[in-house]
């Protein structure tokens, strides 16, 4: 909140078509220390209200053309004016009339017969309410501003995270990749990549930082930096997925709040037709062979950081042209379907199997679409990433 910079006098607007009464009230208010504006009819009053935003408006009920209640209704319909405090003055203070005035938008009533003490007290009460409303408006505006700034920061961080992801398309001649990424918040904690280490050798991974929001996204991008080829050569000195995860496990311990990574890391050796992989607590990886066979690349292994002494071991599978490898977030199958049950790996596998004859891009898009249909809405509770890699060419 901004500190009160000065004690400027509060402003009261008096709207009354009778000059004598208006001038007398204005003089009294000036004596009480207020700055006073005067208007002789409703239209002039509205103009002043818009221009000067007085703290309080004292309004006569009976005026030609625009009477007090119509004035109030106009103010309450105008979003820029609707929080104005209005004290309505009338010579006829019957309960029905008071009720009507309040119903049409006045905040309080003042009888023309009121004592000067009552006038003073009601004006002060009105000014007090105006002050509270103004503070509320200031704070709301400030919160909204900060919120917008924060959201812009998040959007810009999200664009950075997206820029770390590979673009769908050919990776090396004969190998294509298609992918989809749906973070659950603006910023996701899942990252994946596929990098040609040579024309015949590709490294690929998908990692999932536990938790949601800014902190997992930061940890993920630090991890992605560790997984760059030059860094791996320096820290691990090997292409071997198991060796890479064993070292990563030492580099990324559990945080003090119990956050960690799961990851599957694979390499494709196109010359020797071998898929090598290691996983750390990550269940979302499968090989869909052209023959129709599906092998989940699952190893029951601790997530990274759970135990610094863990050794992660590489497993291998032969690959053939036409085979497809999918790396995916567990968020793509561990979500409650519309019936409350978990959708699960089996349904995901069935979906991917059924799309075997479709182009890779269609498989990716349709698999996500099927999961969306199963949960009955667009918004996944967790980050969802899916990367498919197809070996097209006749291998050496």
């Amino acid at each position, binding site marked *: 909140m901004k500190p009160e910079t000065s004690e400027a006098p509060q402003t009261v607007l008096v709207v009354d078509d009778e000059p004598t009464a208006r001038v007398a009230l204005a003089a009294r208010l000036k004596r009480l220390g207020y700055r006073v504006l005067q208007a002789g009819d409703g239209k002039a009053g509205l103009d002043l209200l818009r221009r000067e935003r007085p703290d309080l408006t004292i309004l006569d009920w009976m005026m030609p053309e625009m009477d007090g209640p119509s004035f109030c209704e106009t103010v309450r319909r105008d979003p820029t004016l609707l929080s104005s405090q209005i004290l309505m003055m009338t010579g006829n203070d019957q309960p029905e009339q008071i009720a009507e005035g309040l119903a049409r938008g006045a905040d309080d009533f003042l009888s023309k017969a009121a004592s000067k003490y009552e006038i003073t007290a009601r004006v002060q009460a009105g000014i007090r309410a105006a002050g509270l409303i103004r503070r509320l408006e200031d704070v709301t505006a400030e919160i909204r501003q900060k919120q917008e700034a924060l959201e812009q920061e998040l959007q810009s961080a999200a664009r950075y995270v997206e820029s770390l992801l590979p673009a769908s398309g050919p990776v090396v001649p004969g190998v294509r990749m298609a992918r989809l990424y749906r973070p659950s918040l603006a910023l996701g904690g899942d990252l994946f990549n596929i990098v040609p280490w040579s024309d015949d050798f590709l490294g690929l991974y998908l990692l999932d930082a*536990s938790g949601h929001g800014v902190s997992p996204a930061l940890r993920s991008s630090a991890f992605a930096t560790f997984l760059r080829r030059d860094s791996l050569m320096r820290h691990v000195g090997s292409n071997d997925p198991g060796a890479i995860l064993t070292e990563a496990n030492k580099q990324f311990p559990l945080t003090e709040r119990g*956050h960690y990574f799961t990851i599957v890391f694979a390499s494709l050796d196109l010359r020797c037709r071998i898929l090598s992989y290691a996983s750390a607590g990550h269940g979302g990886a499968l090989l869909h062979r052209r023959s129709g066979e599906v092998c989940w690349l*699952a190893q029951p292994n601790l997530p990274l950081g*759970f135990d610094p002494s863990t050794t992660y071991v590489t497993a291998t599978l032969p690959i053939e042209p036409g085979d497809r490898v999918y790396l995916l977030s567990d968020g793509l199958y561990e979500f409650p379907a519309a019936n409350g049950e978990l959708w699960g790996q089996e349904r995901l596998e069935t979906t991917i199997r059924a799309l075997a004859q479709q182009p890779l891009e269609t498989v990716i898009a349709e698999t996500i679409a099927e999961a969306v249909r199963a949960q009955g809405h667009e918004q996944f509770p967790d980050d969802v990433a899916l990367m498919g890699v197809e070996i097209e060419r006749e291998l050496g």
Partner: protein
Amino acid sequence: MAMQTKERPVPNGVMLELTGDLTYANREQFKTAVESIRQKGCRHLILNMADVRFVDSSGLGLLALVSQNFKLSQGKVSMLKPQSYVREIMSLANIQKLIPVYENEQDALAGQPKAA
């Protein structure tokens, strides 16, 4: 679903009975209960999981953290009777390597790795 915790002394340790879900939403409650037991000098914490329906990724991280913290203070953590779904989640992440799983209290107290 919220979580309830109830502790009782057992020979050379403390049994913590958990009811509810071990998830992100309940992490502070779980951490507070476990930390207060550890700071009292407990050397063997047995988590009774019989009434835990669900453990999410955040819950798994907490279990690992608790196991590491007990190890640092020369203690250990065991687990009793996880439900089948929880058992499945934990075996995918190989948690029983850190936290041995037992089917009855006697085995857990004796530390005999009879069941996995």
